[in-house]
């Protein structure tokens, strides 16, 4: 449990007092996303691994991982970086267990797990109850409402990486879509 949820513990009151859809900008800010990401990087990637809050421009050969949050606010938490940076992240996470040649499955697994950890901690500061989906990797989900996005652009080991918390109110989930693996609360 992070300190963030204690600071921003939410009872869903905002939802009950207004019928207006929740915008992510009212629920979380860039500094909180940055803190969550930094904590995840220091614990999982390494003690000397910092995320510098500097935009590095679009990553070459970008790949994204994300987890969906479904609740009073519904959207995705997306990490996007270059494929080579994703491979470097995988090696950093696996450390001595990293094989000489990484396969795509390892890279997807590592990038997905980072989205899972960041997404789980983002979810903790959002109004509940909500459910977290399993990590997915590929081309990032489209931003449906630019006003419903909180995004940070950082540099890790000098390479561009972005984390976007983006609503999907304009793209409501298919009610028949399989969500059986999400966490029921």
């Amino acid at each position, binding site marked *: 449990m992070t300190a963030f949820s204690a600071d921003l513990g939410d009872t869903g009151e905002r939802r009950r007092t207004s019928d207006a859809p929740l915008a992510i900008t009212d629920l979380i800010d860039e500094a909180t996303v940055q803190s969550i990401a930094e904590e995840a990087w220091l*614990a999982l990637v390494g003690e000397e691994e910092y995320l510098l809050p500097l935009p590095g421009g679009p990553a070459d050969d970008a790949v994204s991982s994300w987890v969906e949050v479904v609740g009073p606010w519904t959207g995705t938490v997306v990490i996007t970086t270059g494929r080579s940076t994703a491979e470097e992240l995988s090696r950093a996470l696996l450390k001595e267990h990293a094989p000489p040649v990484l396969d795509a499955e390892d890279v997807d697994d590592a990038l997905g797990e980072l989205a899972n950890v960041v997404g789980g901690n983002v979810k*903790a500061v959002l109004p509940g109850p909500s459910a977290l989906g399993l990590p997915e990797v590929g081309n990032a989900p489209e931003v449906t409402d630019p006003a419903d996005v909180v995004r940070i652009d950082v540099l890790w080991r000098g390479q561009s990486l972005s984390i976007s918390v983006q609503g999907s109110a304009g793209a409501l989930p298919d009610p028949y879509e399989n969500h059986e693996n999400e966490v029921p609360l």
Partner: protein
Amino acid sequence: MKILVADDSRVMRQIVIRTLRQAGYDDHDIVEAEDGADALAKVGSEKPDLILSDWNMPNMTGIECLQALRASGSAVPFGFVTSEGSPEMREKAANAGAMFLIAKPFNEDTFKEHLDGVIA
């Protein structure tokens, strides 16, 4: 002591195992499971002394695995290592019979805090 580590992410299983060693628990047998159903099967075949399990996994979630274990009469010590640590989840975990819930990200100090006294 035999410890079963259940997580659908191979990378995260490696991180959990590495953190166990960093926390000083480096003299134990480790068994890995890739989801709740695999963990449930390996409780029967491997007879672990402790289970460290992710919550959100395909096929069978960690909480479903724990509930199935307790329903079958198994009292094997069970703790969650999961990316979510809300009060509601901690309560649900405790009610189902979990000893603790470690939220990701974690470090060796977090492991020591929860596992000292559990791991001999």
